[in-house]
């Protein structure tokens, strides 16, 4: 009974807004700590890779960015499913707050992939299955953001966006396998990234950086969701109180 009560309490914007506000500095701080530790381990301590020289150090941001771009899409789809099933207000706002960060992560993954590919494969871009799928993932993010931006009614935007996310998440494996099949059909253009067995320090550096990216995404998404909440709930009493408070005490 109490469990259920709590769940509903936190699902209400009026309670989540201040909670997110207090949590943001913590997530940001933890992200910085993980980031510094990861950079120290990855950039200063980790040894040279015997195949790729120092160029492999791009892995410390490329892999976390790729992981986050996929993970954020899954989280958005999760919120979309919750939102469509239980009609909660918070879930649609969370999905919308996460989308730009996810798109940026996908972009970073492509950007760092290009900068990694140039010295290793001799080309900025190759039509590798993973690169191509990442590009399509970026398109899916952009489609979601365009759709929700085009719908004025927030309720409809949430539901339509949520449905698109679910359709997208069902299609992602098909897209991935089709791109992989396409890649084997056109062998020659494909380049396989040979994964050398990673030194332990490299692995730890990568994991620390992934934690840094994760915490960063949560912090930014919370910042964004708070703005969306104010905007959407502007006619409620708690937002009016919040606006009056921010006026006296300055920005929070």
């Amino acid at each position, binding site marked *: 009974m109490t469990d259920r009560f709590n769940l509903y309490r936190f699902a209400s914007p009026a309670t989540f807004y201040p909670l997110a506000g207090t949590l943001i500095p913590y997530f940001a701080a933890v992200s910085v700590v993980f980031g510094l530790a990861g950079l120290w381990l990855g950039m200063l301590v980790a040894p040279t890779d015997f195949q790729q020289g120092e160029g492999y150090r791009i892995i410390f941001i490329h892999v976390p960015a790729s992981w986050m771009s996929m993970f954020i899409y899954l989280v958005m789809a999760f919120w979309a499913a919750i939102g469509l099933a239980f009609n909660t207000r918070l879930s649609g706002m969370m999905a919308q707050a996460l989308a730009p960060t996810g798109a940026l992560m996908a972009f970073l993954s492509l950007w760092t992939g290009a900068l990694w590919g140039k010295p290793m494969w001799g080309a900025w871009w190759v039509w590798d299955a993973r690169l191509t799928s990442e590009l399509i993932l970026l398109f899916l993010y952009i489609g979601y953001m365009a759709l929700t931006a085009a719908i004025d009614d927030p309720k409809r935007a949430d539901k339509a966006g949520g449905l698109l996310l679910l359709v997208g998440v069902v299609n992602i494996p098909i897209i991935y396998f089709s791109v992989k099949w396409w890649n084997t059909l056109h062998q020659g253009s494909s380049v396989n990234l040979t994964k050398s067995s990673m030194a332990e320090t490299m692995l730890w550096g990568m994991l620390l950086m992934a934690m840094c990216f994760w915490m960063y995404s949560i912090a*930014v998404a919370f910042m964004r969701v708070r703005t969306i909440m104010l*905007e959407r709930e502007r006619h409620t009493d708690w937002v009016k109180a919040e606006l009056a408070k921010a006026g006296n005490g300055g920005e929070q």
Partner: protein
Amino acid sequence: MIHWTSFSDFLAMGGYGLYVWGSFGATALIMAVEPIVVARNRKTTIARLRRQLRADARAENRNATE
């Protein structure tokens, strides 16, 4: 413990400096700019909502006095 012997070695990244620092630079830039944009967006939203609130309150007062 530390892998590099000199700072210029660190910057050169064994000849991959452009690629490595290009990646880290872009990431640092995005991670610095995104929160700033979000924070500014929040400020303008709050300012706009507060203006609307005041306008609504004025309209209500006028209605009450009439």
